[in-house]
């Protein structure tokens, strides 16, 4: 089918795997007291290389490799770049937050790289079992990362909770695959749609699809599968939360989009109402839950549930615009969320010293830079125009309304109005006159890696808000490759879209 070497199709994954393995091998050789930060810089380099490789994949003719299990197209590249960007920012933030006392830093860097490999595989895999393997790689890495704060009781608690519920959800996913295979005789996503029409037992496919939605719904913390989120976010360290609230979710959403739009467009009568309900429920539960939180991480945990709801609104729209909107919003949410957790992790360190909203009182006076950046991300999360957060939300709801989902749009926008309240509480606290606080005095100076991370996230958020043209074009090109027609003739369509 294609004449490019197969390895090119998974080049970003290969680069990151090698980076991770090198880090794992070098780490034990270093002296016990020596700094692990060089390993972090190595990981940064690897991520940059993988980012470049993903971008370069756009030059390749779209096509599949490894017996039709991996496919590179505009869609996979879009999410690869997003994931690599998130990982890059996370590594920089980790380099900033880590101190000489931080234990297990080398492993953390390696795990971040391996997790990214899994997520990337999820977005380029078009064979359900490969997707499942990607999901496992990414999940297991995040389970371990969630327990990174070994000293605090909350860390292991978070990890175990996440692991138990997470494996339960992955089992659902796997069972779904089995049922779909039973109904259609294939696990290749683009082939399912065709075989579904001649299936003897389409009901099995419906059940299988529902199970996949449940499994992935858990991963993206969409209601009613969201219960684990607050506990895990509270227990894990801020750096890790920043990562796991964005990258694995982006990957899971990418899989869900591909499965729904490529494999099961025929069953949309079945899954659309399901997603409608999940979207409305997630937005409402997320925002109402966040209203009464005093802990900033719990607040953002609930807000991430709401975010899953907004994204599902775009899924429900059943249009090219909906897919593009979902992809776009994934990126803009990632930029602001990673950014805000960068600030938390810098202010609180690896041990999360600052947890409550009032702990941040006067932050803007103590450090105008951190305060300004925090304000900017909060404004974007609220959804004020000229930020990525607004344009993402705007695009999602524009596509939903275009598809006639008036009520879902109203529910969503009223929700985003309510959401302003809890973000504002943090904002107002950061800008209130300071009381004397040892917590704020303990905030270290802003380091170079943090500056880079903030620059990356702020710039992305601004660009997505003011000149979203190029990213939108990328998201649209990706969306085009997912349309049922494109699934048959991938090559021509992607090139045209570019």
């Amino acid at each position, binding site marked *: 089918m294609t004449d490019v070497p197969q390895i090119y199709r998974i080049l970003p994954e290969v680069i990151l795997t090698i980076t991770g393995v090198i880090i794992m091998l070098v780490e034990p050789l270093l002296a016990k007291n020596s700094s692990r930060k060089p390993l972090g810089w190595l990981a940064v380099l690897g991520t940059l290389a993988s980012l470049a490789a993903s971008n370069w994949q756009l030059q390749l003719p779209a096509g599949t490799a490894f017996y039709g299990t991996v496919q590179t197209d505009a869609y996979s590249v879009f999410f690869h770049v997003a994931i690599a960007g998130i990982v890059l920012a996370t590594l920089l933030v980790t380099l900033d937050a880590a101190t000489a006392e931080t234990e297990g830093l080398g492993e953390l860097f390696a795990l971040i790289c391996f997790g990214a490999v899994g997520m990337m595989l999820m977005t380029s895999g078009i064979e359900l079992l490969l997707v499942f393997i990607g999901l496992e790689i990414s999940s297991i890495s995040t389970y371990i990362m969630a327990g990174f704060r070994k000293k605090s009781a909350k860390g292991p608690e978070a990890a175990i909770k996440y692991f138990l519920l997470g494996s339960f959800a992955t089992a659902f996913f796997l069972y779904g695959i089995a049922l779909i295979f039973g109904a259609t005789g294939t696990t290749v996503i683009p082939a399912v749609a065709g075989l579904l029409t001649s299936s003897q037992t389409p009901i099995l496919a419906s059940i299988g699809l529902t199970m996949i939605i449940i499994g992935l719904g858990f991963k993206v913390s969409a209601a009613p599968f969201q219960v684990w989120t607050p506990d895990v976010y509270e227990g894990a360290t801020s750096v890790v939360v920043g990562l796991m609230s964005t990258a694995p979710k982006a990957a899971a959403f990418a899989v869900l989009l591909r499965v729904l739009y490529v494999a099961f467009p025929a069953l949309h009568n079945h899954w659309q109402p399901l997603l409608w309900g999940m979207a409305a429920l997630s937005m409402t539960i997320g925002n109402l839950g966040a209203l009464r939180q005093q802990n900033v991480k719990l607040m953002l945990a609930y807000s991430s549930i709401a975010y899953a709801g907004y994204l599902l609104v775009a899924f429900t729209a059943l249009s090219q615009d909906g897919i593009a909107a979902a992809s776009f919003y994934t990126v803009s949410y990632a930029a602001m969320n990673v950014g805000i957790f960068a600030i938390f992790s810098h202010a609180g360190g690896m041990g999360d010293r600052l947890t409550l909203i009032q702990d941040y009182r006067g932050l803007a006076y103590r450090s105008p830079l951190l305060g300004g950046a925090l304000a900017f991300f909060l404004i974007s999360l609220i959804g004020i125009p000229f930020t990525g957060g607004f344009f993402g939300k705007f695009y999602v709801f524009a596509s939903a309304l275009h598809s006639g989902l008036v009520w879902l749009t109203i529910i969503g*926008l009223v929700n985003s109005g309510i959401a302003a309240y809890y973000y504002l509480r943090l904002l107002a606290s950061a800008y*209130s006159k300071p009381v004397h606080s040892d917590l704020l005095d303990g905030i270290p100076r802003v380091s170079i890696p943090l500056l880079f991370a903030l620059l990356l996230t702020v710039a992305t958020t601004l660009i997505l808000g003011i000149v979203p*043209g190029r990213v939108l074009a990328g998201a649209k090109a990706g969306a085009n490759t997912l349309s049922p027609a494109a699934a048959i003739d991938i090559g021509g369509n992607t090139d045209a879209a570019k």
Partner: protein
Amino acid sequence: MLNDSILSLITFVPTAGAIVVALLPRSGKLIQWFTLLVTLATFGLTLHLPAHYHYGQSGFQFEENHPWIASPKIGYHLGVDGISMWLVVLVGFLGPMAVLASWKAIETRTKEFYFLFLLQQTAMIGVFVALDMFLYYGFWELSLVPMAILIAMFGRNRGAQAAIKFFLFTFIPSAFLLVGMLWLYAKTGTFDFVETQQYLSQNGSLLAPQALWWVSLAFLFAFAVKVPVFPLHGWLSDVFSEAPTAMAMVVAGKLGLYSIIRFNLGLFPAQSRQIAPLMITLAVIGILYGALIALVQQDLKRFIAFSTVGHLSFCTLGIFCFTVVGLNGSVYQILNHELSGAAMLILFGILYERYGTYDMALYGGLAGRLPRMATLYLITTLSLIGLPILNGFVGEFLILSSSFGVHPYWGAAATLGVILSAAYMLGMIQKLFYGQQSQLVANKPVPDVMAREGFALVPAAILMLVLGVASPYWIRAISDAVNGLAGNVAHATVTLTTNVAEKR
């Protein structure tokens, strides 16, 4: 050609200034001087508009229209007509005034203050010049942010609460506004105001009337909160008491009223006609309610807040009479009220700087000590009351005369508001400046109006007089724009009354 980019310049010069402010060192008065320079430059640029305006033309002038985002189709479309032109000039004029008023009042965190202040200028000008609804919505929402942060930072005692209250009060209704805009976009395929207007006037009957009605309500709701129209004024008194003077000056009135005229009258004439009885009732209630509450206020900031509710309700009244005269009066009254209301707030502010209280009861007999200030207070007060030869008279007269023509009883009730307004305003002057010197005034010697304050207030006082005697100069441009609107609504009226007649 300057005409092709003047609106972008006016809009973004303050933003550029804000970025420079963020980079300036925090030493001496450098930031203040620089901000003053930026606002003066902006004001100078806004004067370009009336100088090169083509009178006698309806439609938008100084237009700029570039594609911005391909899909969804969003353009960078700017333009002004006779209504928005003067509002832009007004924002320009108030800019330096606000900087001078903040000169001493804001002494800490000046960099944050002036940075956000300049952003606020951009947002307000942007609201008036944007002709693409996406862009408009952008500036509309953006105008909340600097305001809210500044209230939180510089609030007197409960800044954070007032900021959150203000933000939510305007943000949640704006969510409905966004739903409305998205709905229109889904039907028309454009966010462009002019195209949408054409589409609705030609194909409006093809759209579901029920849906169109809800959309117009969503727009009106969002704008009415921002004005604020009674009974949506809950946020105003808190914001007035907490916000720094420079912010309180610009928070109420013009953005909401302008938007009602532009969008509700411009896009939904028939629906506006239908909702008019309700709005007129609310406006008259607002006039009387605001005046009555202001009568019993002891706190100067709350006093001005409720008087503002009353005065802005006059504008609402004039708008929903749908006559050329009434609309002229309303637009004119927006200008007047912003000018005189701002001057009043500055005057209260400089009194506070001297005596450290807004409590009316603690003052008395100031006239003997501060004669120049007394003069300025009196001129501003008379302008707000609507004394002939000062600006307030023209606007109120036009509004009331048109409302008498259309709704005589409501007009009569509103006129009662004028009398009440005179009562509380003059009562305030009496308490502050006449009678026996209070303990506070007697024990604390303070300087009279200083040169810096004079620079802010004397031009304003002169302008009040000029607006009062030379009103035709301004109304010329307003009238051109309003004629088209009133015609629109009148046309809608015809179809509507026939509908009503048929039903009967």
